[in-house]
């Protein structure tokens, strides 16, 4: 049962990805990540001395500021900030640089659907650009359930508004190259990379559909992970790298 997507993609096809790093002069790390027309700019400042009042001084703390394209900061922005903070805290090594604060600022340049995953990918690239020690990278993807029960990946804003009954943002580990023999990084019989870091869902999804979303999302995350690896490995960090 093929869904006709307005831009001609198949159900599992992602929009063109582009990533440029080190674009802001004053930020210690910065990245601009775009998926199709959704563009997010992330800037990282830090680590700077001192933590906020309620933070544990024995760990590095991460502060996230989300700036929408227009309008004032409201509850939706605060929710995004909280989700991002928890995701980034799980990938950073917090025991290095104790009693410091790293600030991540995200600026939405354009929102054409799948905004939070784009922001998570941008924040991850910016953290690497700033040299903040991270355990592994995070790749995020949006899976939407269309009315007829099929799952589409990376919806545009039009698709989000018209077709979707429910959607979920999924954040996975990146795929790693390893010197270890096969099987040693497995936890409970599954490779580490199948683990989920964050999952945010809206709407009503059945369990089977959700598991199917996870599977599709994981397959797509491998492609995003490869793209991220290529873009991090390019020697001149200020050159933009693109992938279709």
């Amino acid at each position, binding site marked *: 049962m093929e869904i006709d997507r307005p831009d001609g993609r198949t159900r599992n096809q992602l929009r063109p990805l582009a990533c440029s790093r080190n674009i802001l002069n004053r930020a*210690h*790390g910065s990245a601009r990540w775009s998926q199709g027309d959704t563009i997010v700019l992330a800037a990282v400042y*830090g*680590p*700077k*001395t001192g933590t906020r009042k309620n933070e544990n001084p024995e760990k590095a703390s991460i502060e996230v500021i989300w700036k929408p394209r227009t309008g004032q900061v409201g509850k939706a922005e605060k929710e995004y900030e909280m989700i991002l903070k928890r995701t980034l805290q799980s990938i950073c*090594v917090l025991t*290095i*640089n*104790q*009693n*410091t604060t790293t600030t991540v600022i995200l600026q939405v340049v354009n929102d054409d659907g799948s905004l939070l995953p784009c922001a998570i990918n941008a924040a991850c690239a910016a953290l*690497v650009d*700033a*040299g903040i*020690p*991270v*355990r*592994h*990278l995070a790749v995020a993807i949006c899976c939407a359930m269309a009315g007829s029960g099929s799952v589409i990946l990376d919806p545009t804003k039009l698709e989000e508004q018209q077709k979707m009954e429910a959607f979920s943002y999924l954040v996975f*580990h*990146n795929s*790693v*190259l*390893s*010197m*270890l*023999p096969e099987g*040693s*990084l497995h936890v409970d019989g599954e490779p580490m990379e199948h683990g989920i870091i964050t999952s945010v869902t809206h709407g009503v999804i059945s369990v089977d559909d959700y598991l199917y979303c996870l599977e599709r999302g994981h397959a797509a995350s491998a492609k995003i992970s490869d793209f*991220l*690896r290529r873009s*991090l*490995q390019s*020697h*001149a*960090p*200020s050159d933009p790298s693109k992938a279709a």
Partner: protein
Amino acid sequence: MDGKPSNSPNSFIDQMVVPGDVVLDLSSMANQTIKLGGGLRQESDAISVMKAGKLKFSRPNKYWVESSQKRYVPCVEDTVLGIVVDSKAENFLVDIKGPALAFLPVLAFEGGTRRNIPKFEVGSLLYVRVVKASAGMNPELSCTDASGKAAEFGLLKDGYMFETSTGLSRMLLSSPTCPVLEGLGKKLSFEIAVGLNGRVWVNAGSPSTVILVANAIMNSESLSNTKQKIMVEKLLQKFQ
């Protein structure tokens, strides 16, 4: 024992690595002591990467990830350029672009006694050496070398300071002399101090020389050796 790690299959030496990559499997290297430098982390039996960069290996047993950032991770015996932020009774507080402010004891100068403590204004630029740098503690600096002599450390007067990445600083300090400095040094006379924390100070007779040198260095970051030579020659031809 592994004779040549670069010959083993799947070796990551001199390759670009990404955070999360596992580069060494310790279970196959029993009875060896391995020294890990920046960017690597031990997780039970595996050594994994924390920062994106190139994995380097130096005989007999040192591994590290070379990357270039705008912030600095303080290491012992590095020479850096610091800016005085405050002065207390016992120390000067100096900013070295790291996660924490560094302390420079007031007596850490050649012939320093309680009677002749130097007076640094807030904002002065100092060329100092890192003496102590451990996690969780503020780094400690000194204006003398290991034997107690002044050795060019101390206040840098006049001149112009600009910020670069740590990778560019390491390239400027590499030996043999990097092509940019060599090319500039043949035609111009200037004084330069390079801090491993990404700060460079240049002083010369005339402001135009200072600007020329500073721009040449900032432009040479992503250029290969031959391109650097060409860039310097073109620049000098235009202005001389």
